[in-house]
């Protein structure tokens, strides 16, 4: 028996052993300690075809391609955030340059609750590691179609927000039903903005969904949709809090299940999100994911107390899971008609939202306007007020904006009444520039 990776796999491990939100917080120094012990003891980094890569820091431009940080990057990011996002980026570069075939960024802090506008931390997240990585790949390597499958137990509301209007990015989130868990969103009816209906798909699963339910959803719902969407890159937001031992959620998933999920999904890049059963789940889940990514037999990777019989889901749950799957498949199938309907005769569409930053105790209200457009993701303007905090106008010109949307967005930015806002900001993606107008 020879031990060799079937797929050359890069591993960026940045456990940030000297960073915590606060000493007793789930997101603390100790979180990946036992994972590192397990990875070291298993000798995974000695395996031919598995290579540990050094994390790097992201640049300000990398972050500003995705986020409007208020008042600026340095106020909402610590060094650890720069390195965590940089870990995902280092892996993406290695993959784009074909030094590795695929990879797993085991980094903290996590990022999938971070939205386009950032006033502070919510759901333990400040900036979105996956989005920063993806937009870097698009800017530097010309990748267009990307699918993100978020398998964290919490709805990936930050990633959803960032890609809400982008028809080139398929965002699928599997999570515990929002009626039973933070952040309370992620229902099938949330299916993307008027220019991108159906490229946001939410699959809320009932509490105590186990291997059967997750793997059914991946095989019967996610995989067929991915096959139709034909992404150039599949990113997995690899949260590990669906595990039966997780202290802050109510699911019944296992290390074997996670490894099998990766084997089915075959993501190009996985990025760690949540997962807080640091002793009983993470060491085994991470070992399983690494082996599954590399294409090595993971059948002996199980939690010491694992008993599949104890974590079998009820018939009720199976029924519920199937029903949600049917709903989502139907949304996907009817996405064009649904888009027509969502647009009506509007030239612009507005939505009003309140966003709560639980980690930092900030309340934000947003008024978002998007130009309905057949030719691009649409010019986007966001008026955002944070309490405590600032009032800003953020204007976004999408990557492949049409001339009309560029003009509209430019006009919004240039004619903004600066006395109404503390800051007026512009993401000009076609020129890859970030601009600020002072008061």
């Amino acid at each position: 028996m020879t031990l060799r990776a079937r797929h050359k796999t890069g591993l960026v491990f940045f456990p940030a052993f000297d960073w915590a939100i606060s000493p007793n917080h789930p997101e603390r120094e100790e979180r990946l300690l036992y994972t590192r012990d397990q990875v070291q003891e298993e000798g995974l980094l000695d395996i031919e075809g598995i290579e540990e890569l050094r994390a790097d820091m992201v640049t300000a431009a990398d972050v500003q391609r995705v986020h409007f940080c208020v008042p600026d990057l340095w106020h909402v990011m610590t060094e650890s955030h720069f390195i965590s996002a940089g870990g995902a980026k280092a892996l993406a570069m290695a993959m784009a340059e074909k030094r590795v075939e695929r990879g797993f960024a085991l980094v903290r802090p996590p990022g999938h609750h971070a939205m386009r506008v950032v006033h502070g931390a919510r759901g333990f997240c400040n900036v979105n590691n996956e989005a920063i990585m993806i937009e870097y790949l698009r800017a530097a390597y010309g990748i267009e179609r990307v699918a993100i499958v978020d398998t964290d137990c919490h709805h990936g509301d930050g990633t959803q927000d960032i890609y809400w209007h982008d028809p080139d990015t398929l965002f699928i989130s599997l999570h515990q039903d929002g009626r039973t868990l933070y952040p309370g969103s992620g229902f099938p009816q949330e299916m993307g903005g008027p220019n991108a209906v159906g490229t946001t798909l939410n699959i809320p699963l009932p509490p105590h969904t186990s291997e059967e339910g997750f793997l059914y959803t991946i095989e019967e719902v996610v995989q067929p949709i991915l096959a139709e969407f034909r992404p150039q890159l599949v990113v997995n937001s690899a949260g590990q809090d669906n595990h039966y031992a997780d202290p802050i959620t109510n699911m019944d998933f296992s290390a074997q299940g996670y490894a099998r999920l990766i084997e089915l999904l075959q993501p190009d890049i996985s990025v760690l999100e949540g997962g807080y059963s640091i002793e009983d789940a993470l060491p085994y889940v991470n070992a399983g994911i690494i082996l599954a990514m590399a294409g090595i037999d993971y059948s002996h990777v199980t939690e010491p107390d694992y008993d599949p019989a104890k974590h079998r889901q009820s018939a009720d749950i199976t029924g519920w899971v199937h029903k949600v799957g049917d709903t989502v498949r139907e949304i996907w199938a009817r996405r064009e008609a649904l888009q027509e309907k969502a647009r009506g005769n509007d030239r612009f569409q507005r939505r009003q939202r309140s966003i709560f930053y639980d980690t930092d105790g900030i309340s934000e209200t947003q008024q978002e306007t998007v130009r309905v457009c057949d030719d691009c993701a649409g010019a986007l303007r966001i008026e955002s007020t944070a309490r405590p905090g600032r009032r800003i106008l953020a204007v976004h010109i999408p990557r492949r904006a049409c001339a009309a949307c560029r003009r509209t967005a430019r006009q919004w930015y240039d004619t903004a009444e600066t006395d109404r806002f503390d800051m007026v900001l512009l993401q000009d993606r076609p020129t890859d520039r970030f601009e600020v107008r002072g008061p």
Partner: protein
Amino acid sequence: MIIGLDVGGTHTDVVLLNQDGLVEALKVPTDTDDLFHSVLQALEKITAHVDAAGVSRLVLSTTLTTNAIVQDTIAPAGMIVSSGPGLDPDFFRTGQHYYPVPGSIDHRGRERKPVEAAAVEAAARRMTADGIRQVGVVGKFSVRNPGHEIAIRRQLGDRFERIFAGHRLSGRLNFPRRIATTFLNAAVYPLHRDFFQAVRKSLEKRGLAVPIDILKADGGTMNFNASIDSPCETILSGPAASVAGALAADPGPDQCLVLDVGGTTTDMAVLVEAAPLLSPAGGRIGPHKTLVRALYTRSIAVGGDSEVRVAEGRPAIGPRRRGSAMAFGGPAPTPTDALVVLGHMQAGDRQRAREGIAEVAARLNLPVDQAAERIFDRACSAILAAADEMVAAINCRPVHTIHAFKEGLQVNPGRMLVMGGPASLFAPRLQALSGRPCRVVPRPEVANAIGAALARTTCEVTLVVDTEQGLATAPEENFSRRVTGAYSLEEARRDALELLEKKALKRGARPEDLELEVVEEEVFNMVRGFSTTGRNIRVRVQVKPGVIGSLKGDL
């Protein structure tokens, strides 16, 4: 007086040192089929005219275990392995006599599944029937809790001549490497034991009852008794002797690159503040990745006797060595021949060297002298390129804390120290090509033997504390004690250093050479629910590799 002896591939070098420095140095040819004979011959020659009573220390650096492992002439050894969840232990099979048994210990050292005594018994019977005499016993996470390895060893009793337990060989995590290391120790044990007993006996017969120290892969030494318990630490002695030689040449407080230019290969290592960089996971020998403390070295197949070929219109050096240089009767042109042609080297048959280089020159379409220059440049630049690659690899090593990311050591050696036979000929060209000062160590042709003679006794200790479980353990040292929740990092450091000092003295260190240092330390608050339930502390300490004096005196 101290005797240092280094067995190399072609020569065995031996030196005699006293307070004033080098008294005598000589070489005998190495008989690879009978290293014992070469060692004795060298020792006899060097002690022919000295008073045996004046010799206080003998340090041997031999390729005995290295050769046996690389040539796969090691003894069969049995392995009993308990793994628990993770990779299938069959991936790490060491050979025919390999027995995985049920049993599991987790990352915090808690037993999750007891060892199955019946499976151990069955394995023991089979191994006994197969005539196995040495056995290795390895458990996953045995460095967190050696209970299973101890229980298996106890069950095997005295049915085997020697049992090696993984947790006693290294305090580091890495189950596959622990298996490989334990297996190699068991497998080289009979060879090592016989060799050193024979050396000791024949020295005693000659009235030389001196303590024998043995050079290890990390550039330090251990005494004979310690080596019986971990013979595998004697692997990779060649580069270790070079680095000790560089240290003996007083390398200064900055960073420097050590190059040992030999006949077949050039070995390179990095010194930082007068200490060599060690390989982060452990030494590698042949196909085996081990936990043996070893230097971070790189070896390329470019040396004075490497065969020179022409590839794609350019001279190519190595990787083969087909014999000595043509100037010394060899069959193929070599960089040494180029040096003879250029007049840098006076020895050797100049005519033969010219003939050899002329062949290459014809294929390069160059005059002979110019071809010789090209060959020499090519050899030097290949060495420099490999050194740059090694430094780059060191600098892109991953880090796991913000602190290390920002403050982590960046290596950029500003100087070179060169040794080995052709050192003085290569140094000026290496300096010219790299733009970095390049110094030749004193007596470069026997610098490794000098290094062996002066190497310090080294070792390391890893202490792991889990105050939630109330335990501080260093299984490597057979150490475990109860601690309270108040146990601090300072106490952990103190306990670790105390264990280290005891270990070093037992392994032959002189009290005045104990330069102890903390190489790694981590403290984590353990939080369960929303309150702190304990502290998890890991401390690794070592005797800094170094020398017990420099060549200029001070012995």
